[in-house]
């Protein structure tokens, strides 16, 4: 065990390698996320962004390297144990429980630390945590409707709400605005800004416009490695980034 909780960064990834059937998805990634950061993770298709958060959340096992969360090595731990340490994530295709109501979805997320026997009791009313999450995502009017009736954007918000209700120390959002309309993107951006105020958040994103509007710190991945790291302006100005990723967008924007 190197480093205590206090002096370690919240997330420290060192020399991370992932190999799928001979394909090197990640080839030695180093990444540090400090407490309170809002970090964007970008890169062209196949750069390894999702693979990276898959490793952090236990879905994929690394071939080499370490993932330290607040000083604890989480590489290879089982998924639900990692969640219990305080890492929450969303998926590209949002998965909410369609048969359950919006409140039940949030309540389920909020109650994950309850011991099993207490789950045998019926839910009475709405807990403060759930009410607060419902308020944050703005789905109060749909609280008792089954989540199956929600639109794509609302589902993503519900998922984010479920994360917030778990009070995680680190949130990993995988392409939260993919497939969203312009209005929905704006609302998601506001939601993100609000959440980032008191959470550490890592966002994997594809959408450059969204990035320009809401990102401050950006890490660019390319072919399984970290290409550049810095603030939005610096990253955008970097010729290597332009070459692999932003080149076209920049010309179009000019």
């Amino acid at each position, binding site marked *: 065990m190197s480093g205590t909780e206090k002096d370690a960064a919240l997330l420290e990834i060192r020399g991370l390698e992932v190999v799928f059937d001979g394909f090197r998805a990640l080839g030695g990634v180093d990444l540090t996320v400090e407490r309170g950061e809002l970090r964007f993770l970008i890169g062209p298709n196949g750069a390894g962004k999702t693979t990276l958060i898959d490793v952090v959340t236990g879905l994929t096992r690394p071939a080499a390297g370490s993932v330290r969360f607040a000083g604890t090595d989480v590489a290879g731990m089982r998924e639900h144990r990692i969640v219990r340490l305080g890492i929450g994530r969303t998926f590209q295709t949002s*998965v909410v429980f369609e048969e359950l109501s919006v409140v039940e979805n949030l309540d389920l997320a909020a109650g994950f630390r309850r011991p099993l026997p207490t789950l045998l009791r*019926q839910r009475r009313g709405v807990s403060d945590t759930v009410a607060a999450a419902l308020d944050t995502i703005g789905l109060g009017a749909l609280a008792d409707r089954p989540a199956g*009736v929600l639109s794509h954007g609302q589902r993503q918000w519900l998922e984010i709400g479920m994360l917030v209700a778990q009070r995680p120390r680190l949130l990993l959002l995988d392409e939260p605005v993919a497939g969203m309309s312009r209005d929905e993107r704006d609302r998601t951006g506001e939601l993100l800004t609000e959440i980032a105020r008191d959470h550490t958040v890592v966002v994997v994103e594809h959408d450059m416009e969204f990035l320009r509007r809401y990102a401050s710190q950006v890490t660019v991945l390319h072919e399984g490695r970290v290409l550049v790291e810095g603030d939005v302006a610096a990253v955008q100005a970097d010729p290597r980034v332009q070459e692999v990723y932003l080149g076209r967008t920049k010309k179009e924007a000019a």
Partner: protein
Amino acid sequence: MSARLRGYALFAGVAALALVVAPLVLPAFRLDELAKYLCFAIAALGIGLAWGQGGMLTLGQGVFFGLGGYAMAMYLKLHDADGDLPDFMVWSGVEKLPALWKPFESPVVAVVAVVAVPVAVATLLGVLVFRQRVRGAYFAILTQALAAAFGILIVGQQALTGGTNGLTNFYDFFGQDPEADSTQRTMYYVTAVVLGVLYLAARQLVKSRFGRLLVAVRDGEDRVRFLGYNPATVKTVTFAVSAGMAGIAGALFVPVVGIISPSLLDVVPSLELVVAVAVGGRYTLAGAILGAVAMNYAKTSFSEQWAGGWLYLEGALFIVVMTLAPKGAIGLYEQARDALARRRAPAAPAVPVGKEAAA
């Protein structure tokens, strides 16, 4: 609130029908038949919980039904033998009571074993299987294979289990003559009450947070994992509860029908239970019970007319239900009710009624 009240009224109505009207109206022979259907309904209730709510298609509930049945039957055999060996053991040339049978001389051990043995077996299986993330068709095939193996095991161990004939010819059931009408009537009441109590308990489970979690596991097991729950635990607990119900069903079956044998617990009866649950409507507990009673009633009536034809009809019905009405009879009823409600209030937007999973 009114829906809740209506649910209570419906339950009270069915209870009155089962406990007051049926014993008054039905001749003893038919009441005994109904008691048998209710035994199957108890096992079906467990399937409704595991399959309908939890998504675990268990094709081997006969194993747990059998474990409960044999536990009860072994006690009755030893009680009848009164210190000697049970009759079939004598015929098989057994000279000393096998160690497996020894504990079942005690009625307390036997009654505890009715629930404890199926629960223990299901828990062990669940821990091994769900932790490895075996699910869907693989789980179904595994449980089916278990039922086949269990049947073969019992047939093969003639001297220990009574083989193909099973255990039968009981003369004394806790001081009563099991064949007497009064005993049969009592057994009917006991079975009906046990079913009612287990139904209420299962319904409570479904409505609890655990029940919501179970549905979530059914619909998105991986997502549940990322909420910080271990789906394997949720599934194992539910599977064990359903096994316990099947064990109780099997134990009640023995005095009600007077026999437990391999043909009552291997592949075919296990499948028949699942088919009945599907036909009744697997997504509601009431549907599972309804299906078990209706299908077994149909089986009896149909077999009285045309023996051997039932299996074809049952298979056809299963295919029709799974392809055209996957929510079963209860699902069709709900559809009709919603359609009617919409016709009555055409101005209101077509809002699907918030489905109560445990109606």
